[in-house]
């Protein structure tokens, strides 16, 4: 291993902060991100430098600089697992996708079967952890203390789930399908990670895929090789990795990872008064509207009197982004950003905004988005006990001059 890559392996975010402080007057710097403070940058197999959340099982977060562009590279895509051990090796000679339960013809499909027996369908869609930004909740909540990097956008390609279920022949009385992957817990007492979707939802939605390609390449091992479920518009908890077993069942599946885990308050905002518990919950589902600034990064210095191009992305749960607005006065007045190419209603939508800072000093740039049905983001964060659905208006603090 070269000295350079070894140095990369041990590079620390805290260390980067020190470097910034040494190269610039500390008094002029914006506050570093408290959620990410002290967390190392690490390099995992098939991955570039990502921010470590946990080692075992591995959970890795994408740095914000990748969110200036619509597509998140496979090597920079976040990683999230629930149980350990995780699959570290897959043999395509023995890997099968099994479809069982209330079907006419149980199937055992090879990866080659998925590629050749079903039309190849591609959809560009955001994959975001339910708990993305959980580390920013106040009052704080237990769980993975993510910053904002547990999200990414890719072109996913594979077979339609409904085509696979049609080939198997869904029988009368089918209510849901369950999805299980190769990751299995170390103790039999630990709940296996299994998720479910309504059969009607699967059969009505041509964009729900069993994907074997991510941005035109095989999936990285840590993102679910050789195939994962893709549920555009819905949180990543449903996008089961290393998919191996689909079972069609005649009831609503309520094992651990559907209930009590991954539930949100059963009301319009999915929120409750901070510090309280909801009376009723439902499984988490469609993503809320979000928008972020990817460049310049928070804490950067920009010159006075010269235009700087702010870049970022916006997305929602599948209605599509209609407008992105930027404020350079802390949210008092807003101006429309320029939208990038429309890559579909489930994709990151790139935006740019040219801004000429007039005065030296600290500056806060704020962004918000609106989707096609008028949903947007709030000035005050909403709260729920699991730390899900975050969609408060975001900002970066810059140093001008």
């Amino acid at each position, binding site marked *: 291993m070269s000295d350079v890559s070894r140095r990369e392996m041990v590079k620390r975010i805290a260390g980067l902060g020190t470097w910034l402080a040494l190269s610039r007057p500390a008094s002029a710097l914006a506050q570093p991100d408290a959620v990410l403070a002290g967390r190392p940058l690490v390099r995992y197999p098939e991955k570039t430098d990502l921010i470590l959340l946990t080692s075992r099982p*591995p959970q890795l977060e994408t740095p914000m600089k990748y969110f200036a562009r619509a597509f998140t590279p496979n090597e920079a895509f976040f990683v999230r697992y629930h149980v350990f051990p995780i699959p570290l090796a897959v*043999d395509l000679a023995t890997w099968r996708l099994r479809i069982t339960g209330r079907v006419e013809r149980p199937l055992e499909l090879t990866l080659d079967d998925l590629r050749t027996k079903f039309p190849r369908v591609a959809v560009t869609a955001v994959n975001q952890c339910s708990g993305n930004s959980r580390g920013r909740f106040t009052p704080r909540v237990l769980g993975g203390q993510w910053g904002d990097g547990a999200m990414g956008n890719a072109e996913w390609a594979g077979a339609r789930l409904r085509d696979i279920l049609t080939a198997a022949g869904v029988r009368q009385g089918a209510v849901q399908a369950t999805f299980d992957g190769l990751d299995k817990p170390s103790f039999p007492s630990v709940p296996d990670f299994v998720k479910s979707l309504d059969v009607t939802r699967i059969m009505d939605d041509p964009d729900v895929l069993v994907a074997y390609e991510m941005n035109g390449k095989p999936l990285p091992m840590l993102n679910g090789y050789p195939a994962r479920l893709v549920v555009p518009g819905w949180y990543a908890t449903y996008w089961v990795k290393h998919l191996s077993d689909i079972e069609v069942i005649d009831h609503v599946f309520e094992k651990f990872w559907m209930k009590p885990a991954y539930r949100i308050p059963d009301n319009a905002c999915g929120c409750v008064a901070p510090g309280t518990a909801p009376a009723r919950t439902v499984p988490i589902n469609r993503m809320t509207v979000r928008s972020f600034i990817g460049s310049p990064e928070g804490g950067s210095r920009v010159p006075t009197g010269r235009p700087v191009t702010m870049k970022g992305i916006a997305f929602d749960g599948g209605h599509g982004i209609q407008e992105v607005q930027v404020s350079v006065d802390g949210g008092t007045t807003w101006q429309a950003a320029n939208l990038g190419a429309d890559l579909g209603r489930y994709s990151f939508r790139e935006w740019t905004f040219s801004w000429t800072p007039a005065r030296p000093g600290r500056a806060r740039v704020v962004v918000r988005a609106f989707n096609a049905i008028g949903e947007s983001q709030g000035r005050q964060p909403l709260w729920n006990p699991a730390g899900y659905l975050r969609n408060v208006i975001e900002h970066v603090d810059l140093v001008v001059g």
Partner: protein
Amino acid sequence: MPRAFAPGLVAFALAVSAAAAADRTIVLPPDDRYATLAPGPGIEVTRQQCSSCHSTDYIVMQPRGDARQWDGVVTKMIKVYGAPVNDQDAKTIVEYLAKQYGN
């Protein structure tokens, strides 16, 4: 039934046995030193019991909290996730966490 468990060893054995036939194999780095627990009474029991299922960065990243918070976490690990931790060790772990990761 013996419940003693060495997850690293099992993962390694799985990786080696699967690697012989696998078309794709990766090897994970060891737990990062970011996960290092704060020194204090009960650290050995805490490290041994908790890290048999997960790296201890799960602990160090959490919001600080009193004994009630940590008792809730340890109880959840035992009751919900089935962690095989006896009552005495659970008490030691809660005391350690409330002291080292308390308010």
